C-alpha cells in the first residue's frame, strides 16, 4: 500500500470575491514527509487562507496542491481526506455532547469501527488527561480542555499529515506545553505537521522549517537555524520583524 511522501504547492493564488488584492500571490513550496513546518506571518498575511486551501476547505483561484504518494501518484478525494487531520482555529466541537459522544461521531465519519473508536478514544483521553470527563458535556470544559479535545478529534483516524491552525490559542502555559509535547511525539511517529500560529516561541519549540508569509507572499522558507544565520538575527522575533518590515 502506497504511503504519503510530500505535499507540492505550485503557483497558488487566492483572491476573495469583492476583494481588489490577492490574499495569496503565486505561492510555491514543498512539504516533505515527517517535517514540522511552521507557517508564520503577521495578521492578514494569508496563513489561514493558505492552510485552508492546502487541506481542502477553500478553493484556490489558481495553482495546485498535490499530495504525492511514495509511488509518485497522488492522493485524491476521500483517500486524501483519510490522510489528513485538521485542527481548526475555532473549537468546532459539539458542546451539547459529551467528550465520548463527540469522539464516537467523528470516529464514525472517519469510517472507524466501533472497536477502533473505543480503543483509540481510551488511549487519547488518557494521554490528554481527560479520562475523568469522558462522559461530561464539552460545554463545561475549560478552554485548554477544549483545545485538547479539538486535537483528539483530528488525530482519531491516525492521519499522515496534521494541519494545525492556531492550535493553542487562548490556553494556559501548562496546556500549551502538553499540546506541543504531544505534537512532537506525533512527529516522532512519522506524522507530518503543518502549523500556523502567532506564537513565535511556540513555533521555535515545535518547527524545524519556517515559511514566513507577508502580504500574501513567501518572504522566507528555510530551517530556523539557516534563516537566523542568513539574517544574523538573535531570535525568531528579530528574524520575524526584519523580514516583515515590522
Amino acid at each position, binding site marked *: 500500500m502506497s504511503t504519503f511522501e510530500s505535499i507540492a504547492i505550485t503557483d497558488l493564488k487566492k483572491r476573495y470575491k469583492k476583494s481588489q488584492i490577492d490574499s495569496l500571490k503565486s505561492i510555491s513550496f514543498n512539504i516533505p514527509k515527517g517535517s514540522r513546518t511552521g507557517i508564520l506571518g503577521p495578521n492578514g498575511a494569508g496563513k489561514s487562507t493558505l492552510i*485552508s486551501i492546502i487541506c481542502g476547505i477553500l478553493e484556490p483561484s489558481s495553482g495546485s496542491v498535490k499530495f504525492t504518494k511514495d509511488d509518485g501518484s497522488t492522493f485524491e478525494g*476521500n483517500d486524501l481526506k*483519510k490522510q489528513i487531520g485538521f485542527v481548526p482555529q475555532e*473549537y468546532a466541537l*459539539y458542546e451539547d455532547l459529551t467528550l465520548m*459522544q463527540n469522539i464516537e461521531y467523528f470516529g464514525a*465519519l472517519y469510517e472507524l469501527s466501533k472497536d477502533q473508536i473505543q480503543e483509540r478514544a481510551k488511549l487519547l483521553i488518557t494521554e490528554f488527561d481527560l479520562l475523568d470527563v469522558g462522559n461530561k458535556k464539552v460545554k463545561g470544559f475549560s478552554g485548554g480542555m477544549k483545545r485538547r479535545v479539538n486535537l483528539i478529534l483530528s488525530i482519531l483516524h491516525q492521519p499522515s499529515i496534521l494541519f494545525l491552525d492556531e492550535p493553542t490559542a487562548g490556553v494556559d502555559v501548562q496546556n500549551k506545553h502538553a499540546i506541543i509535547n504531544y505534537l512532537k511525539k506525533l512527529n516522532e511517529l512519522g506524522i507530518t505537521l503543518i502549523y500556523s500560529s502567532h506564537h513565535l516561541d511556540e513555533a521555535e519549540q515545535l518547527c524545524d522549517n519556517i515559511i514566513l508569509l507577508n502580504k500574501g507572499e513567501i518572504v522566507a522558507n528555510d530551517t530556523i537555524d539557516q534563516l537566523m544565520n542568513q539574517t544574523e538575527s538573535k531570535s525568531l522575533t528579530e528574524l520575524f520583524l526584519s523580514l516583515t518590515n515590522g
Partner: protein
Amino acid sequence: MVKLRAAILKEIRQLKSDFLGLIMLFVLPVILVLIITLVQDSAYRIVNENNISVLIGNDDEGGSSQKLIELLDDSKMFIVHHTDVSEAELKDELLAQDMQMALYISPDFSEKLEAKAKSTSDLMMSELGVTETVDNGSTIQSPELDLYYDPVLQDNFTLSIVGILNSYLSMVESELMISSVFAEMEMETPPELMENMKNNQVAINRIPAQINGGKINPNSTQHNVPAWTIFAMFFMVISLGGNIVNERTSGSFQRLKTLPTSFGVVLTSKVVVFVVVALLQLTLIFSLGKFLFPVMGLPTLVLPSNIIGFILISILCSLSAVSFALLIGTYTKSQVQANGIGAVLVIIFAAIGGVWVPLFIMPDYMQTIGSFSPLYWCLEGFYILFLEKGDWMALLPVITFLVIFIFTCQFLTILKLRIEKLI
C-alpha cells in the same frame, strides 16, 4: 449508512440535551392547543350548532306568548330557559347565567297581538264586503318584545336572531288572523289549515360545498388541532435554525470539509431527525384531540378516511417546517437572529395563513396574501382531509405548493452554503 446513522444519533443526542428546546417543541404546543380550543369552543358551537341559549321572562298570560315560546323551543336553534325575574332584573340574570340572549314578553303582549290580528282581519273582511266598513286600525298599538343580548355578540348575529323572531311572530299573528276571520264568519277554524300553514313554508335547502357528500362541519377541535400542530412544527425553527447557525459559526461545517464524508449525510440526518420530531408533535397533539378532548367536553377529533393522504400531508408539512428552519438557520448570522427572525416569520405566516383566525372571515385581499403562507397550505391540506373528505384532485394544489416550497427552501439553503464555501 454507518455515517448517516452516526449523524442521526448525534442529532438525537443534541436534541435530548436541549431541555428548553424540547419544552418548546412538545409542551408549549400542547398547552397552546388546549387553551385555544377551550377558549374558542363556545364560539365555534354558536357558529356550528346554532344552539343559542335564550332566557325568557314572560309576564304575559295569554296564548300568543306561549305559542311563540313553543315555536322557539321546537326550532332546535334555541335552548329556552325560563325565569320569573322582573324585566329590570333580566339583564343581570342574562349575564349571571352566562346566556347569550334574553327575551322579555310584557303582560299585554297577547292582548295587543290578538287586537292587531283582529284589526287586520276586520279590515280584510270589510274590504271583501263580508262585513260593514270598520275603523282601519290606526288606534291599534303593535306589541313589543325586548331582546337583551351579550355585547360580545356581533351585530349581524343579533340581527339574524331578530329576523328569526319576526318570522315566528308572523306565524303566530297569521294564525290569529285566520282564526279571527273564521270567527267573524261564525265558523270553526279548520285544524288542517293551521297545520298546513305551519308545514308548507318554502323550503330552503342548505347544501355545504363538500366533496363526495362529506358532512363534517368544522368545529373548534378540527380547526385548532391541525392549526396548532402546524404552528408547533414550524416553531422548530428555534431549535433547528439555532442548531444550523451554531454549526456554521463554530467551524463544525469547515471541519466536515476535511472529513471523508459528504455534507449530504449531515443535512439528511438533520432532515430525518426533525421530520420525525414534527411527526411526533403531530401524533401527540392529534392524540389529545382524539382521546383527551372528549373527556374535557370538547369535540372529539375525527380522523380522516383517506389515510394515505393524511400520511402524505403530514410528511409534507413536516418537511416544509424542517426546510424552512434550515433556510432560516443558513441565512442568519447568529442564534439570536435565527430565533428572532424565525419566530416572527412563523407568527406572521400563522396569522395570515388562518391558524389563529380562519381565513374565510378575512377580507379578500388578506385571503390572497394568506395563500402565500406555507402554513395556509398545510392547514388547507388538513381541512380537505378532515372537513371536506377531499379526494386526490382536491389535495393536488396543496401537494404542489408544499413540494415547491420544500424544494425552494432546500435549494436556497444549499446555494447559501455553497456561496459561503461551507459545502
